[in-house]
């Protein structure tokens, strides 16, 4: 087929094709240590502040409890309303519901202002992870609502873990009775190594991510989420590493909460 015959009925692309020039440097975070210099099992530095949404225009609009949480570049804000009259009221136990939303500017690609199915799924994940810690039998017919807004996200599994920590802090600030605060961390598998608390760049080059939410006081696991394929031994190894990291995150959270009083 001759290449110089042109199709005049259609708009043609270029006749010659060239390889795109990649301007990004090839990133190898794990060969020579992580990009930000952390150890493999080190979690990003955490900052937390409760009661950030206490003053509002009207006293009715103020939430019962709120928390602002930072972990590295991840920034999340959570407001807890309740206990208040539930829409679908259960006579025996209260109902806990989460509303998770990325702000449009939080990820590297702009998010829509309409809630996507991804955000609805994460809302359910957060509900299932945190509900076991709340003493819902003390709030029959009432509901506790948590609204999570991700101001900046860095690594999907790490953001969900940070959201769980943020909700725990906001629930404690709201004075809702809990069995224990829930501390969560995430790990990702790169080859055979488990890397703790991955940023987006690190997560893009991994094959599997694992999220564990734990209540250290009862030594109970509230939620495990795994994305990707691993062997059973690898999951066990990752799970154990997550459990150790969760204990450290819990200690940090408790110190902030005690200091806030």
């Amino acid at each position, binding site marked *: 087929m001759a290449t110089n015959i042109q199709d005049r009925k259609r708009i043609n692309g270029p006749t010659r094709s060239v390889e795109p020039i990649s301007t990004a440097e090839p990133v190898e975070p794990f060969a020579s240590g992580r990009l930000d210099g952390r150890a493999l099992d080190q979690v990003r530095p955490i900052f937390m502040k409760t009661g950030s949404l206490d003053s509002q225009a009207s006293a*009715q609009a103020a939430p*019962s409890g709120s928390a602002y949480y930072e972990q590295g570049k991840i920034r999340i804000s959570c407001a807890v*309303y*309740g*206990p*208040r*009259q539930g829409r*679908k*009221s259960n*006579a025996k136990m209260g109902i806990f519901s989460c509303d998770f939303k990325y702000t449009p500017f939080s990820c590297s690609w702009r998010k829509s202002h309409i809630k996507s199915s991804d955000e609805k799924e994460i809302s359910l994940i957060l509900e299932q992870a945190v509900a076991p*810690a709340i*003493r819902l039998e003390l*709030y*029959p*017919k*009432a509901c506790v609502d948590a609204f999570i807004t991700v101001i900046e996200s860095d690594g999907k599994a790490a953001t969900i873990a940070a959201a769980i920590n943020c909700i725990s802090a906001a629930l*404690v*600030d*709201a*004075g*809702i*009775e*809990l*069995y*224990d*605060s829930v501390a969560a961390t995430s790990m990702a598998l790169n080859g055979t190594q488990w890397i703790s608390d991955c940023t987006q760049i690190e997560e893009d080059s991994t094959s599997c991510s694992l999220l564990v939410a734990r*209540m*250290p*006081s*009862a030594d109970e696991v509230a939620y495990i989420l795994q994305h990707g394929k691993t062997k059973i031994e690898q999951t066990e190894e990752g799970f154990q590493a997550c459990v150790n990291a969760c204990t450290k995150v819990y200690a940090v*959270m*408790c110190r902030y*909460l*005690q200091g*806030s*009083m």
Partner: protein
Amino acid sequence: MSTAGQTVVVTPGRRLGLAQEYESGIGTYVRNGMIYSSILGTRKIKEPTGDSTNDKETSTNKPVLYVERDNAKFAIPVVGCEVLGRVVRINPRAASVAIMMVGPVPCQEDFLGMVRVQDIRATEKDTVVMVESFKPGDIIRAEVISLGDQRSYFLSTTKNEHGVVFAQSSDGNTMVPVSWEEMQDPETLAIEKRKCAKTF
């Protein structure tokens, strides 16, 4: 163990003491023989009083371990508690009440309660007329008798100290109760019928 005078701030899930030595008070729960805290606050101990006649907790003579929180948080209505509410709507069968406070603690958002016509008075329940008991806008004190149906709690004002505590007359003046079933406007001296609370 904390020494007397030293306040220990505890977070949820913190171990406070043994269930053998203490009773678990507010803000705590018991698991496996240990008392844990369930809110953020200061750990406090209340010694049992020597002469406890009707208190079930201190009858076992154990000190009560509880967690105290400074800022009052919001309450939800519980069966048997006294609530303060505002009458929103009335119909011949029931009065809808927006519950604003449970005891001394406010609610974050008004809960919905209902006083059925047979729960307004203790005597002559079948001859009660709603417009002679409550009017929309009245503030009433009532007791929660049950969790009710899906939408509202069930309240009752049968006791003497329950009923209308504050009402405005049709001329807009605050009325004063003159008997258990009448309130008077101090300016126009008009009498309106309400089921009044005996607050004195």
